[in-house]
């Protein structure tokens, strides 16, 4: 990255971060709803740990991973809404008249998502460490969880940006939110895959990359260092991020041509 591009990315990143963090309507639900679901699940499903083969003594430790992925879903909403807003208000039109590089624009726009993702990851880790039994993989494991959570946020945020750039509509971004939720719900979020009784659901959860993102984080919380779970978690999160970024970059090219 040359100096001019770095400057462009920095300027747009600062704008994106400030804009995201200045909107309580974006930050508060992104923290509140995952923590609420965590608290309710921890009490409501604690007895599920009595099932033979359940991997944790406390359901809170098991379900903590869901917060990070759910936080990523809010990242998609946040990134998509901000990009759509830039299109609707004509900000992108004005930028297209400048010598700004498209890479810088996309990276800058996603900086706000990463800032929100970092706040979420640290908050969820602190809550998990206080209310649960701590992170089994220790401080280094916690740092790996933050890295994986940021990659997940980047992936989902890029999907949100892609939809916004493709449609130019904030309403369309809101419309994909339920679909993203479906990806979370049809995963191993509530029980380990080997304990899911319904065959078709277990099959869907096995093909769903979100299951592996959850299991990557969960392995660090519950069992310690598990190379396979981590490799699959990072591969799935990285794969989603890569595909979504390429798609978003292509949509940005089209959007800039249109303008």
């Amino acid at each position: 990255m040359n100096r001019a591009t770095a400057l462009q990315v920095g300027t747009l990143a600062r704008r994106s971060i400030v804009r995201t963090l200045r909107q309580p309507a974006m930050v508060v639900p992104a923290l509140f709803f995952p923590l609420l679901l965590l608290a309710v699940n921890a009490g409501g499903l604690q007895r599920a740990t009595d099932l033979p083969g359940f991997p944790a003594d406390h359901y809170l430790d098991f379900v903590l991973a869901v917060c990070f992925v759910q936080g990523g879903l809010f990242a998609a909403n946040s990134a998509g809404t901000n990009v759509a807003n830039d299109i609707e208000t004509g900000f992108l039109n004005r930028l297209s008249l400048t010598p700004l590089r498209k890479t810088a624009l996309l990276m800058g726009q996603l900086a706000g998502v990463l800032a929100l993702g970092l706040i979420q990851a640290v908050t969820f880790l602190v809550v998990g460490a206080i209310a649960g039994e701590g992170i089994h993989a220790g401080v280094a494991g916690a740092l790996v969880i933050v890295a994986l959570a940021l990659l997940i946020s980047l992936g989902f945020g890029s999907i949100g940006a892609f939809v916004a750039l493709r449609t130019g509509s904030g309403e369309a971004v809101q419309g994909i939110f339920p679909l993203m939720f479906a990806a979370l719900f049809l995963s191993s979020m509530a029980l380990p895959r080997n304990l899911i009784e319904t065959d078709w659901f277990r099959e869907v959860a096995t093909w769903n990359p979100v299951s592996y993102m959850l299991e990557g984080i969960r392995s660090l919380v519950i069992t310690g260092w598990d190379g396979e779970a981590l490799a699959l978690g990072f591969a799935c999160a990285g794969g989603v991020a890569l595909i979504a970024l390429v798609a978003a970059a292509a949509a940005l090219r089209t959007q800039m041509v249109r303008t």
Partner: protein
Amino acid sequence: MSRAGGTRDVALAVAWRGAHNYFTNPAIFIPGLLFPLFFFTAFAGGLSRVDSVPGFEFGSNYTAFVYGFVLMQASAFGGVFTGFSIARDFESGFSRRLLLAAPSHGGIVAGYWLTGVMRAVFTICIITVVALAAGMDVQGGGIDLLGLYTLALLVNAAATLFGCGVAMRLRTMQAGPLMQIPVFLLLFLAPVWLPYDLITGWVHAAATVNPMTLILTTERGFVAGDPVHVVITFAVGAALVGAALLWARGGLHSAEQAA
């Protein structure tokens, strides 16, 4: 035109408009339908093994157990989403014109209530078909089912009138979380995944004082053909509707003063 006739005409006109907006706008239609379906699929499919937890006693299968909750959720959120529509009407200026033109303001509230009923009935029909296709075992007879759906309509009426009261007082879409979060909390602080006796910790304490616990337990009893606490549950349901009606009436006065 008699006063009753005026009220009826206004109510039917508002309800017809609500139905038209609902069925012709996917952004309104889809989330209200998809969220209960996601919850149903995730819980009935992903959590069905928890009926093997020691002490889990229910007269039907786990799909039927989950259906009781999703039915209540669809009823309540049918009302909450109607509250969003009322807020949108105020933001667009439609409600101000409606308040000036309608001969009966009570008819406006009645019309929104009918809209909430229509939304909930539509969602409930879809969910019931999906639940039956997924193997829900309904043990209850005709009277039980009448009780089940009457209770669902009471929950829907209470939620719609609550949302109406909030929307008419604040008259902005930004009031959305104030309608959604209390209902969300009431729903999820009930015994969602396991019977009341099996939930633990602070969620158990919250469920003890939550009126939704009683309603949910009776609804599940109707499905299983073994209803419990029927009289007290209907009394609580009626009290919730009465309280929400007073709240909505106060909201209407506030909107009339502002118009």
